[in-house]
C-alpha cells in the first residue's frame, strides 16, 4: 500500500514481548525523498475510544529504496483493539493519503489484549 507516493507499507508483525505486552513492527519503504520529518500516528480503537501512539520518524533522512522497520509496544488495558496507522505533519495537518483509496491510514487488523 502506497502512502502519498512517498512511502510503501510492506507489512507488519504483531508479537508478544517477554513481559506479556503487545509489540507491533511496521515495515515501510521510502519510494520518494521527503523534505519533512513526518509523524507516524498509530491508533488503537476500542468501543469508540482511541488511544494514540504518535512519534516523529526521521523521514527526511530516508533514501529512496530504504526499507525502514519501526516498532512500538502497546501499553493498553485489556480489550479487543482495531489498529491502524498513517503518516502526517502535525504542524500543518498535511497527510500522506493512501493512493489506492484516498483513506488517511492503513488498517492493521485486530489485536486482543488480556
Amino acid at each position, binding site marked *: 500500500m502506497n502512502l502519498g507516493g512517498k512511502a510503501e507499507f510492506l507489512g507488519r508483525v504483531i508479537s508478544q514481548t517477554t513481559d506479556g505486552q503487545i509489540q507491533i513492527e511496521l515495515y515501510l519503504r521510502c519510494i520518494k525523498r521527503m523534505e519533512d520529518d513526518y509523524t507516524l500516528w498509530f491508533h488503537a480503537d476500542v468501543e469508540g475510544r482511541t488511544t494514540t501512539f504518535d512519534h516523529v520518524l526521521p523521514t527526511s533522512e530516508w533514501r529512496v*529504496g530504504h*526499507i525502514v522497520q519501526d516498532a512500538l509496544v502497546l501499553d493498553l488495558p485489556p480489550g479487543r483493539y482495531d489498529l491502524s496507522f498513517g503518516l502526517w505533519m502535525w504542524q500543518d495537518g498535511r497527510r500522506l493519503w493512501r493512493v489506492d483509496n484516498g483513506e488517511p491510514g492503513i488498517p492493521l487488523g485486530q489485536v486482543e489484549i488480556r
Partner: protein
Amino acid sequence: MNEARAQTPRWALPLARLGLQPWDLAALLMCLVAFWHGWPATCDLAWPPDFDLYRDVPIAQTMLDGGGLADPAYPGERLWYNPLVPAIIAGLSRLAGQPVPAVYARAGAYLNLLAPLCFYLAVALLFKDRLIALASTLAFLFVTCQHPPSRACAAYSPWLFTANFTQAGFYLTLALYERALRRSRRRDFLPVGLALGLAFLGHTAPALILGSIVALHTVWTALRSLDRTLSSPQLHESIVRLGIITGAALAVGAPYLRIILCHYRLDILNPAPSSWIFSRLEIENFLALVRANLSLPNLVALVGGIVLLARPRDRVAHLLTLWLIVCLGFIGLGYGSQLAARLDLPVFYVVPSIHFLFYLKALVSALFGYGLLALIRFVLEFVKYLLPRLHGCFPGLLQTRVERVALILLALAAALWSYGPFVRQPAFNAVRERAQTVVPPGWRNAYTWIREHTSPSDGFLAPPYFGLHIVTPAGRKVVALKPVFSNPFIDAASRLEHNVAMYEYLQAGDGERFAILASAYEVRYVVTIDNAQLAAHNLPLEPVFTDTGVTVYAVSRPLLPT
C-alpha cells in the same frame, strides 16, 4: 623521403612502405613475448580469479540478457560502474558463444596487448623517437613492475582488470592531444575529446588524469598568453579547443554520465567502492612505499624527468610534468582523505588512489627510455672529458649511433635481468591457481542451474560472497553484496543488515518477518552454503537444487504477503 629510403636496409623496405620501422616490429615482438607467458596462464580457464572481475562479469551478463545499463545486482537500479569493458566482453561472449565468466577469464591475455602497443605508440609520438619508445616499452613490459597485483601496476597483464585494459585509451588520448597541440588545428581536438569520452566509459581514473592534464595545460597556455594582452587570440583559441574536447568527451560519455549525474546526482550513500585503500598506500606504509620505489628503473626515469624539466618551453616536457603533478596530486588527496577520516572530518573520495599509483608507474616506464639515453650521453661526455684524445674519434653521427646501440643494449639487458621475476610473477602462477579454485564445482553447477531455471528478474537471498561469485554473474539479482562491490548510490549497509536479518529469521523459523522482507526485496530463491541449517518448519521454502556445499530453495509465492 628518397634519402631516408636509401638509408633503409633492403630487408626493412617492406616495413618502410607501411610507414613502419624495425623498432616497431621489435616492440610487437616484445609484446608477443609477454603474451607467450600470459596466454598459458588463462587459455583454459572457465572462471576469473579476482573479486574485481566478479564485479564486472554481472555487468556484461546483464547487457547480454537485455538489461542494458541496469545495476546487475539490485532490481530497479542503474549501472554504477564504467560500462565499456563489460560491453566489449558481452560482445565477445555473443560472438564466441562462450559464457561470460570464461570470456572474462581468457580475453585479458589478448585484449591487454593493446596497452603495451598503445604505450609504445604514445611514447614514440611524444619523444619522436621509436628507439626510446622501444626502450620504454621494454621497461613497461618487464622491468618497472615486478611483483604487485596486476591492477596496481601499469604493465601487461593477462587478467582483464579494467585498469589494465583501459590504460591503452589513456596513452592513445595523450598521444592524440600532443598531436593536436603540435598541429594546432581545431579539427584535431575532436578525436582527443572522443578518445577522452571513451576512456571515461572505460574507467574513471584515466579520464580524471587526462581531463586534469588538458584543463591545466589550457590554463597554463591561457596564463602565458595573458602576459601579453588580455584579449589574446591565443586565449580565445585555447578556450575553443577546450570546448571542443569537453563537448566531444561529454557526448561520448553521456550514457554513463547521465546515470551518475542526472539519475543519482552523485549522491553517494555507500563510499566503500571509492574509499577502498590499497594496503601499500595506507598512511602507515608511506615510508615502506618510498623505500620500495628506490629502485634503479625509477632512478633512470627520474633522470629522464630531470632532463625533461630542463626544457621548460617543451610541450612534451610540459605534458609529462602535468601527468606527474596530477597523479601525485590525486595520491596526495588519497592520503589527505585517510587523515581526514581519522580526524572525523568530512571526507570526499574520488576513486581509489591505487589507480593514480598505477599511472605514476606508467610515467616511470615512459621516462625510462629517455632517462637511459640521457645517462648514456652523460657517460659518453664524461669519457670524452677524461680521455680528450677520443674527441676526434666520435664525430656526431658515430656518437649518435653509439648512443642508440648502447640504449637498446642496456634496455635489453634490463629486460633480461628482470625476465626471471617477470616469468615468476603471481599474475602468471598464483593468480591462475586461484582462478582454478575460486569457484568450487558445486557452485559451478549452481551457476548453470540458475542460468537454466530462473529469469533475470528473479531475486536471490544469498551470502554476499556467493552472490558476488555465482548469483550476479548468472545475471540474477541479490539482496546485498559487500559494500565495496555494491552500488555507491545505494545504502549497502542497510541491505546487508536485511540480508543478515532474513537468514536469522529463517534459522529461527520466523516465516512472517522473512516474508515481509523477502517480498520487499523481490526474493524468489534462497541460497544456503556450507550446509547451513534453516528451521525445518513454518517456512515458505522448497529445495529446488542441491550440490556439494550449496542448496537453493524456492520461496513459495502464495505465502508472500500481497
